[in-house]
């Protein structure tokens, strides 16, 4: 498959609920999965930090292959036209402390 295919024909990215979906195309050769995720988090209005202000960790799940893409992978090498990536975070609930601002 031509490496220009993914740059032209694109793929989709969604959040876990499937309510936010973007088509992505014209991806430069050197864009990594990490670059992609970082750009899409803001574009999809997903929080980039957790409650403590620490950067959130979003994984890019490629259902076609049943795996998470590594951040260092090149987008054009790992994805095919028509693929769908799902951005899935590691996210914490909990804390027994009931501090100011808690509901």
């Amino acid at each position, binding site marked *: 498959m031509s490496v220009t295919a993914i740059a032209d024909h694109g793929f989709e990215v969604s959040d876990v609920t499937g309510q936010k979906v973007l088509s992505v195309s014209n991806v430069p050769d050197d864009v990594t999965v990490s670059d992609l995720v970082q750009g899409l988090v803001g574009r999809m*209005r997903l929080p980039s930090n957790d409650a403590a202000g620490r950067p959130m960790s979003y994984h890019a799940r490629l259902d076609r292959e049943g795996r998470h893409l590594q951040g260092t992978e090149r987008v054009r090498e790992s994805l095919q036209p028509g693929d769908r990536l799902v951005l899935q*975070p590691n996210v914490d609930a909990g804390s027994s402390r009931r501090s100011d601002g808690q509901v």
Partner: protein
Amino acid sequence: MHSDYRFVLEVRTLDGAVLHREALSPDWEPAVEATRLAALRTGGVWPHTGSTTPRLEPVWHAAAGEPFVQAVRVHTECEGREWVTDIPTSRYFNGTARSVVAAQLAAGRIHAEDRVRYAVAAYAVSEQGHGAPPLRFVTTDRPQTLSVRDRRLAELRDLSLLCGEVDPADLGVVLPEEVLDEICRLTRDAGDRETGGILLGHLCRDGRVGDIGLEVTAHVPARHTVGDAVKLTFTSDTWTDVRAAVALRRADELLVGWWHSHPAAAWCRQCPSERQRVCQLSTGFLSSDDQALHRVMFPEAYTQALVVTNSIVGLETKLFGWREGVLQPRGFHLRRARIPGSLARDSVRPLASALGAACAEEPHALPDAIALSSQ
């Protein structure tokens, strides 16, 4: 989100002296989602925020006047029509204000005995600052159709107990007793560890009354989590599992929220039982982490967060949902099933019995609950 204003939080003494000012970088997403839900409930449309950028403007404080703000007005468009919602700022920024005051307290600029109040001010932006760097690739929004079923809401609430604090403006939520019963059993089985799951369901439109309700249909226990007594991490594999379950069920269900447990009996084990019975940790609450999780995963205004507290007095259930962009405790209808010795029924605080004449006199009773009492 577009706004021609920048927002500032001012902390003042009761006599008006300014103690601290802090520029705000508001997360307006919950406010936008509140506007979308209002459009769905009143107009049956689901605005796609990708095609037209929502716009935000201040509503000046009625008494204090400009630049002080009593609400922000969110404008969004759909099908050629504009939808507008006013979001009160007092509640929207309450959490931020508390954090700012706590920081000032920690820095010694205010003292524990000081009484302060806060106000939100808005100032016109003379020139737009630099936004996020442009993306190196092209993105296009793909608006998703929101599935809404036609269903009579009264039918949905048939044979149900009204539980918790009910705000008439809230989206009605129906939770099947068998679902809550399983959640309670998982909570009890988890013992001293937090556990959780994802709520699935449908939005339902009643054309007769012109409103929307939420029916929870099932829950998916959260697997591949990492949990202990005070923290529960939902991992990427958790979400993969949930999505697979939804696909397998083929019931066109939405992810409508989540639940998790608070093992308060474990937290408070070192305290005397008398203190445990009245401890705030033994009542349902959403921690800052819980609220942040809900914001990340469930920003849509129709989504819910259920907390099951396992304390010395037993299991207690509390539901939280978005109200004007802020997560608030709220009531719900527990649709009863024929389960003897139901854990679910023991875990809720019914606002009124669905049977009995007292229901008709209950100020928060809904018309269908009154009708049920006459059967």
